[in-house]
């Protein structure tokens, strides 16, 4: 006997009651007999719900005392009753309306015996007053009465089934199969009701109900549409037209019997839309008509649907005949062209059509959902079932088991997939059981999640645990789903014992459908990567299926796979390489993305595959900054004996840094200004270290110390910290002889150093060259390569033209002797920032030069609209506009004295030189053009100012600029728009 303490407030809460105060009151209401039940109720999925329903049931039954006694005394009965009441509000309601059904749950055989399908069918037929032994059973009840009786009987059986499922831990496959049996019996009983309604005409036809989908697969849900197809033949002596009309009436009446809402509710909708021609086609066809359709018109997905066809009700002999005729068509369909791709395309369409806000909580259709498993299994069935009859079962889990047994699916994968599918289906069942509603969406409210978690046996922290398990299985499905699709591609080339082989031809077809332009070559790469028994090949075999998918998602899958092969061959035996890719998913994914997108980064990687190491973690993708790079370059150079080797070492470090920036730009959000800074830093570090090495070299060669200081002045985009990938470095060299030095010697040595710097950096080598361009120096190519500071002063004093002052706007002495750099700056500032601004003539001159430059510099045949630099509203337009503002106003506004375009624009806004909206328009166009130009170089691997014409390259540029696949013309439109707007602003401000 229970003590009061057992039902104390605190104890009830500990047992799992939410509203323990109310629970105590209700328990007291039921009386002492029931008190010991408290812990038992506490074990149900929702104790409060179970208790409430029990009280309601006790009030409804005639034999209250007996009910309470049985519940208290017979642990089996109480377990069954309470677990149902705690998990299903709908079944609780049913019990209240039909209280006598509680006796069903006292049946001890429920725990051990699966009710045979024929027994369920008999019960349902009897309920509608039909004789199950008749060849064509007919209901003897009135129509409305029969509908109600069928519903009550259906729920009675469902109640027993739910009790078995919840209290006796039925396997998912058993529960689903019993539900399918129940549905089959129900369809038969509904047909008996339909026969009574249609009357004598019904005798003219033989009608068979073929279950499709989950019912056909013997794996039904608690609540779902039941998919069927009807097939009929005339009974001998009747005309086909008469018979088919009657069959149509029977079929539509049958559907109504099941779906109509009556006093006793509804059962489920019967869906006949999988029939030939769907909604537009006739409801019932003869076998010949079915056959004609499938031979002529049917699409791949319709054959896929036929995998599940199974005669379940009506004339079973006719049903078997149908199966005999139609069955083989499924397997011939799998031989049709493009069949796998169609299946995959269909799957993508399904994914695309789920409302985005629901995807996350979808058990069925979302990524990693049930549909993924079903599709994967069906696909493999259709591929391999052609030749291997063993893998043809229509039930998902049985088919999976066979596929695993026969080696089409790895043992581990098969097991994980089985577990995930069982888990997700069970979860779906429990969600549906609660209100007997058709839903595949995880609830979001805490009470529901708590009930679900507890119904699956997670008594501790049910919500958290449920969430964890759910996501774990989802992830597993996602992971395995990919493997199952791509793995067969490997088996086409690798001889793996026990695995079925995909023929090379079909592997090629599949690769082509995935976007590989040259599937033969792709297959060769796969073969090269996976052949042999080495550990490397083994790891590659696990890695490749996923990599292949990632390549397929990138703009250029062929380049991706080819690059991967070359790098893998170069690094194959390096222990960390494959480990990195295998263990750090992100590194592998980044690598696939880079190889399939950027020829620039791929070239850098291939020159030195060790660079792959930087893909490993986020931190390593941070650009290092000038000091760090410069220090490393310097010490690498100092360890070398001669300038040539020293510069080679410097260039190797530069290459690694370029790779780092390019990869970071592709993989993590990275502003275009930041790319410019990073590239500028690397360039300056390179020049600094190279200048030092060259000086040491010249000193050694001449046997004397440098009699002069040297510096390098960055010009153009380099001076503006706006370098792009593959930009040349525009510079001027300046030197300043030490006091008392021999001017001749100083000039000659400085000249030698400058020459060496240029030559050593542009010499052909493994690493990319840095072209040092000195064309912007005074007198251009006619002028001396290096001038002294005095010579610059003299030149500018004598010759300075407005265009030279303009070029100096972007001059930044970034490299070499710090004092000299400072003095050079002091020298040019008054020139480029004239205190009095520009004269009217100067402004006219600037405009005139720009007009000429625009016309002359555009390469022949180039489309001006697609030229980032010289097109209307392009980089040059924006920069000239900003520079004009600078020359006019920087004399009086010191903040405007910057070499950076965007910074100057910002300052111009602050000083009201330009309206904020105009500045925004210019800066947006400038940023877009710069980003597009960088992306173009990344894609093409060489410097270019023109948007690529090639569709594939253009798509890749769009991908880098974050446009979704198939929207490259959106990018073009956006670019043209931003350029058009900028052009309007330039027209006003620059052209005046």
């Amino acid at each position, binding site marked *: 006997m229970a003590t009061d303490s057992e039902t104390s407030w605190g104890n009830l809460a500990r047992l799992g009651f939410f509203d323990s105060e109310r629970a105590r009151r209700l328990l007291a209401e039921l009386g002492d007999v029931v008190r010991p039940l408290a812990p038992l109720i506490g074990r149900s999925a929702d104790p409060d719900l179970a208790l409430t329903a029990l009280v309601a049931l006790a009030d409804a039954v005639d034999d209250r005392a007996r009910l309470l006694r049985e519940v208290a005394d017979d642990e089996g009965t109480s377990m069954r009753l309470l677990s149902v009441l705690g998990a299903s509000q709908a079944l609780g309601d049913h019990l209240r309306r039909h209280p006598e059904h509680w006796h069903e749950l006292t049946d001890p055989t429920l725990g051990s015996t699966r009710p045979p399908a024929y027994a369920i069918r008999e019960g349902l037929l009897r309920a509608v007053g039909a004789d199950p032994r008749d060849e064509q059973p007919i209901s003897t009840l009135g129509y409305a009465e029969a509908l109600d009786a069928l519903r009550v009987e259906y729920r009675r059986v469902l109640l027993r089934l739910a009790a078995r499922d919840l209290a006796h831990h039925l396997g998912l496959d058993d529960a689903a199969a019993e539900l399918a049996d129940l549905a089959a019996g129900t369809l038969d009983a509904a047909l008996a009701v339909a026969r009574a309604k249609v009357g004598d005409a019904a005798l003219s036809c033989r009608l068979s109900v073929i279950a499709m989908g989950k019912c056909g697969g013997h794996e039904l849900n608690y609540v779902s549409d039941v998919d069927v197809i009807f097939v009929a033949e005339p009974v001998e002596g009747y005309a086909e037209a008469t018979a088919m009309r009657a069959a149509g009436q029977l079929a539509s009446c049958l559907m109504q019997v099941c779906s109509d809402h009556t006093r006793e509710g509804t059962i489920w909708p019967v869906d006949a839309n999988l029939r030939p021609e*769907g909604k*537009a086609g006739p409801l019932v066809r003869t076998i010949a008509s079915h056959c004609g359709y499938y031979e002529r*018109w049917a*699409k791949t997905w319709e054959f896929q649907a036929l995998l599940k066809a199974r005669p379940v009700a009506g004339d079973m002999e006719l049903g078997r005949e149908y199966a005999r005729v139609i069955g083989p068509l499924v397997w011939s369909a799998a031989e049709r062209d493009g069949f796998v791709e*169609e299946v995959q395309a269909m799957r993508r369409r399904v994914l695309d059509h789920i409302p985005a806000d629901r995807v996350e909580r979808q058990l069925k259709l979302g990524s990693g959902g049930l549909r993924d498993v079903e599709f994967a299994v069906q696909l493999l069935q259709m591929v391999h079932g052609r030749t291997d009859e063993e893998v043809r079962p229509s039930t998902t889990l049985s088919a999976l088991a066979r596929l695993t047994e026969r080696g089409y699916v790895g043992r581990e994968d098969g097991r994980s997939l089985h577990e995930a599918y069982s888990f997700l289906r069970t979860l779906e069942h429990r969600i549906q059981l609660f209100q007997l509603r058709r839903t595949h969406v995880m609830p979001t409210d805490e009470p529901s999640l708590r009930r679900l978690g507890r119904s699956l046996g997670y008594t501790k922290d049910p919500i958290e645990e449920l969430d964890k398990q759910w996501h774990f299985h989802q992830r597993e499905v996602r992971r395995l789903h990919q493997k199952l699709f791509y793995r067969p591609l490997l088996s086409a080339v690798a001889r793996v014992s026990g695995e079925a082989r995909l023929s090379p031809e079909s592997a090629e077809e599949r690769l082509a459908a995935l976007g590989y332009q040259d599937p033969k070559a792709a297959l060769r790469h796969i073969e090269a990567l996976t052949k042999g028994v080495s550990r490397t090949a083994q790891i590659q075999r696990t890695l490749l299926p996923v990599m292949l998918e990632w390549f397929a998602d990138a703009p250029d899958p062929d380049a991706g796979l080819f690059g991967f092969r070359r790098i893998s061959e170069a690094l194959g035996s390096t222990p960390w390489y494959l480990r990195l890719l295998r263990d750090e998913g992100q590194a592998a994914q980044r690598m696939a993305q880079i190889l399939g997108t950027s020829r620039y980064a791929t070239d850098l990687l291939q020159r030195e595959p060790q660079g792959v190491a930087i893909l490993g973690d986020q931190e390593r993708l941070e650009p290092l900054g000038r000091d760090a790079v410069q220090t490393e370059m310097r010490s690498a150079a100092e360890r070398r004996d001669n300038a040539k080797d020293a510069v080679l070492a410097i260039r190797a470090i530069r290459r690694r840094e370029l790779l780092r920036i390019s990869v970071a730009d592709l993989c993590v959000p990275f502003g275009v200004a930041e790319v410019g800074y990073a590239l500028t830093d690397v360039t300056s570090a390179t020049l600094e270290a190279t200048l030092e090495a060259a000086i040491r070299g010249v000193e050694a060669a001449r046997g004397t110390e440098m009699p002069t200081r040297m510096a390098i002045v960055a010009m153009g985009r380099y001076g503006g910290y706006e370098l792009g990938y593959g930009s040349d470095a525009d510079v001027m060299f300046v030197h300043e002889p030490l006091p008392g030095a021999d001017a001749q010697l100083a000039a000659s040595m400085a000249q030698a150093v400058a020459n060496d710097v240029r030559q050593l950096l542009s010499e052909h080598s493994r690493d990319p060259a840095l072209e040092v361009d000195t064309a912007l120096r005074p007198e251009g190519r006619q002028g001396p390569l290096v001038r002294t500071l005095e010579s610059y002063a003299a030149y500018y004093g004598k010759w300075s033209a407005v265009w030279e002052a303009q070029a100096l706007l972007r001059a930044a002495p970034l490299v070499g002797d710090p004092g000299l750099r400072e003095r050079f700056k002091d020298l040019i500032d008054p020139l480029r920032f004239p205190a009095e601004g520009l004269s009217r003539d100067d402004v006219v001159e600037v405009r005139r030069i720009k007009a000429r430059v625009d016309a002359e510099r555009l390469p022949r*045949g180039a*489309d001006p*609209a*697609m030229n980032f630099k010289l097109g209307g509203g392009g980089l040059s337009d924006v920069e000239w506009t900003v520079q004009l503002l600078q020359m006019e106003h920087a004399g009086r506004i010191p903040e405007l004295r910057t070499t950076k375009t965007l910074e100057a624009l910002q300052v111009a806004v602050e000083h009201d030189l330009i309206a904020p909206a105009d500045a925004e328009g210019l800066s947006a166009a400038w940023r877009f053009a710069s980003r597009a130009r960088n992306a173009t170089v990344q894609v093409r691997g060489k410097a270019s100012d023109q948007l690529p*014409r090639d*569709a*594939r390259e*253009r*798509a890749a540029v*769009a991908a880098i600029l974050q446009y979704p*696949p*198939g*929207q*490259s*013309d*959106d990018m*073009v*439109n956006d670019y*043209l*728009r931003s350029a*058009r707007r900028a052009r309007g602003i330039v027209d006003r401000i620059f052209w005046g």
Partner: protein
Amino acid sequence: MGKQEDFVLRALEERDVRFVRLWFTDVLGYLKSVSVAPAELENAFSEGIGFDGSAIEGFARVTEADMLAHPDPATFQLLPWRGEGPSTARMFCDIMMPDGSPSYADPRFVLKRTLQKAADKGFTFYTHPEIEFYLFQGRPGIGEDPIPVDRSGYFDHTAQSRGSDFRREAINMLESMGISVEFSHHEGGPGQQEIDLRYADALSTADNIMTFRTVVREVALSQGIWASFMPKPFTTHPGSGMHTHVSLFEGDTNAFFEAGAEYQLSKTARHFIAGILHHASEITCVTNQWVNSYKRLIGGGEAPSYKSWGHNNRSAMVRVPMYKPNKGQSTRIELRTVDAACNPYLAYAVVLAAGMKGLEEEYELPREAEDDVWSLNDRERMALGLEQLPKTLHDAIRIAEDSELVAETLGEHVYEFFLRNKRAEWDEYRGQVSAFERDRMLPVI
């Protein structure tokens, strides 16, 4: 492949179709057609039919000529004028780039994009055009005055007139192509006809207008006469417009209707009208795209040349038709500027965009024009704040050049090409010496 594609493939087989014409429209609104055999159609559905875009007016730059035409199976129709025997069918196409992205040069995509933007806000755009055109005896030769087929006037019924024979035949053909005709009658000018199409969503309407123009010209040819949609073929007779009734639906309800409001016009409708009026000058270049279009607009009568709206006022640019009780679903407004020689995809796109802009910005609807706008004098019009629409193509181009709305709606490619082409048309026209000048000057100076 979806159900619709299946349907088309099946129909080809069953109807013994030997050729399928794939139709699309260039930027200026001319219909383009490429024929394929049924066997190629499956491929056309899945991959599209490649063609050289640079050969089509306004489609591609020479350097990126590869384009693909993707037939839209929902537009499948048999062509009725090919007589008995093996039949020919047509489908409209969407134009794609080689990477599968829809081409911004495709006028149909311009309209689709604009419709999508409205759909994102929950609206569907319905239109109902009244298309006017002239019938002439035989094909007018260069430099000759065209001779109309009759001398009748508005709503005239003439026994055995060629015009009514023509209309009957044309309507039969349109109906057999699934294009419902609402109304047809003789218009004001000699030989001038009007046929009204039933209201439909704007994309279908635009497709239908393209079909309509073809059908009308085919039927005319078969009867030995000539049909033209030229906006103003005669100095003295009325021009041919394409008054278009437009309405917005939210799901199944007419968003322009509000029971009890003035003229039963909802706030949405008022903002929409305000949008059209506000941007009227900017979009005129598209709705009235030819030098000749402006001769119609300044001609008075049924064609508006001032930005105005009015209830049942036929001189207003936007007319709100008389409300019929219990017909809330048919509440609509009539835009009277558009002419029948426009590119219907582009024209409907800019009209919708202007109206939607009015909705977004909640423009205030200006005062209603209650009088016949033509009967007012200039001062009166000024006092009432009635602004004039562009008087020439040149004015219209200048205004469109500064229009963000038009650029945004047409997309950069079409916008740039369209204006370039129109500027060229104007420049060429400007240099023409006309009969008017000679008649005026030669005799006297």
